[in-house]
């Protein structure tokens, strides 16, 4: 098989009337980072949700590691080692930190112990917070829980919807550092980010979505160097 962990072929989806994304083709390589940028309402989040099975695909195919998961429910998609972290409501607020992590390993409870050790390694701050209700944590701590819970899946593909939203600049730095660390361990990441420049700097591939379609796709450095992209989406002037 190819090196692609995710292949989306001609995907259409949306809510209610009309499609929000149409004919999206993207493929993500193993252990790579892909960032999707684009204006508000371009369908970035919808695409990620469609891959996770949260939004129903209307046409096209989604292959995870060669398996066709299109049309599967989110819980079935997650059984193909896909972990999706929504932008909001991405933790169980009334559960403790440890219980949240447990939910991450729901599918394979026997691997809980070994995985939890690795996650706590990655986020040592959580050690002291194990029995605290997640709803009582600070924003940055919550993001760690959300991220940690996703890693408990031991995913091959991690889908992140705006991982840096609402975090302080210092926290954003740390978050991207962690993302790179995660990639080192062999996990592919696809994320949607508003912090486009920072995100593209850690990414291998960048895609620009606009009006529900992929307007441009290329290596992250290419996109960073592209004048048009910079003016339209990165908010910088060269």
């Amino acid at each position: 098989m190819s090196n692609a962990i995710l292949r989306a072929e001609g995907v259409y989806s949306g809510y209610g009337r009309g499609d929000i994304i149409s004919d999206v083709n993207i493929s993500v390589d193993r252990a790579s980072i892909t960032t999707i940028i684009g204006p508000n309402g371009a369908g970035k989040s919808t695409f990620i949700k469609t891959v996770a099975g949260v939004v129903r695909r209307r046409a096209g195919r989604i292959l995870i590691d060669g398996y066709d998961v299109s049309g599967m429910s989110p819980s079935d998609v997650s059984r193909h080692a896909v972990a999706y972290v929504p932008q909001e409501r991405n933790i169980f607020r009334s559960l403790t930190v440890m219980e949240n992590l447990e939910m991450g390993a729901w599918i394979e409870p026997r691997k809980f112990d070994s995985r939890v050790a690795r996650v706590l390694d990655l986020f040592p701050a959580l050690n002291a917070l194990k029995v605290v209700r997640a709803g009582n944590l600070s924003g940055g701590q919550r993001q760690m829980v959300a991220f940690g819970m996703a890693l408990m899946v031991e995913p091959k593909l991690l889908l992140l919807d705006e991982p840096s939203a609402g975090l302080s600049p210092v926290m954003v730095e740390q978050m991207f550092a962690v993302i790179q660390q995660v990639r080192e361990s062999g996990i592919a990441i696809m994320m949607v980010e508003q912090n486009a420049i920072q995100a593209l700097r850690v990414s291998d591939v960048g895609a620009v979505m606009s009006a529900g379609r992929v307007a441009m796709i290329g290596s992250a450095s290419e996109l960073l160097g592209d004048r048009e992209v910079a003016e339209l989406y990165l908010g910088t002037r060269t």
Partner: protein
Amino acid sequence: MAQVIVNGIVSAALIAPPAVAFSMLFGILRFPNFAIGGYITVGVFAAYAMNVPLALPFWVAALGATLAGAVIVWISDQIIFRPMRTSAPVTLLVVSIALTFVLEHSVRLIFGPDVKGFNLPLERPITLGQIHITRSQIHLIGTALFIIVFTHLLLTRTRTGRAMRAMADNPELAEVRGIRSTLIRVVATLYCGALLGLSGVSAGFDLAIEPLLGWSLTIPIIAAAILGGIGSVYGAMLGAVLVGLAEEFSTLILPSSYKIAVGFGIIAMLLLLRPQGLLGQPEIKK
């Protein structure tokens, strides 16, 4: 005065377990299920049928009611609520009221409208100073406490229980993490049904057994659950105690014919002032 408090606690013991069940069902099924009254009625009549016409011992009847409750809640969820799970909560609320009619009147069709009683003698109370309480009322309180603690352990100490809480908290995320909602739904409906069936036995014991019994308990139960905060087990217990006390104490101030309004009054005040309940978590604002 002390007696009023005891009365309030006995009432609370009656409504706390079903309030817990209502709260859990609300969390998992995501709509206020008014059919709890119908389920309780089914429970009490199942117990009656076994205890009196079939002359089985009371504890067997109570067990049977628990089973009957579990089965009826599960079945009604399978054939009515689950297929409609994408409907708006209000539509489901209306359906649950229709279901109450169907259940209560089916019971009435089978057993007739007369009041009935279990095959248990009424007891005189034990008197401690100013306070009267009967042995079986103590049992009632004990059972309620046991149910609360048991439910709490179930929800915190078992994997399925934690998954139930996760689903009530954030169903989309639970699904994304691979928790199968269908399975959790089955467990939750069976367990809540068992609680409601058992509550029916307590209610039939304390009040008179008749088809509309469940309906008269519905409002205090919902008041207690909302007061405590949806999804919180201890909250439901606290809510039940407060509703019980409020109803008893209200008669010292208001004409007793307004007592029914107290439950509603509590619900309204609380929803307006603190919608998340006393022990509940505030909802996230988007």
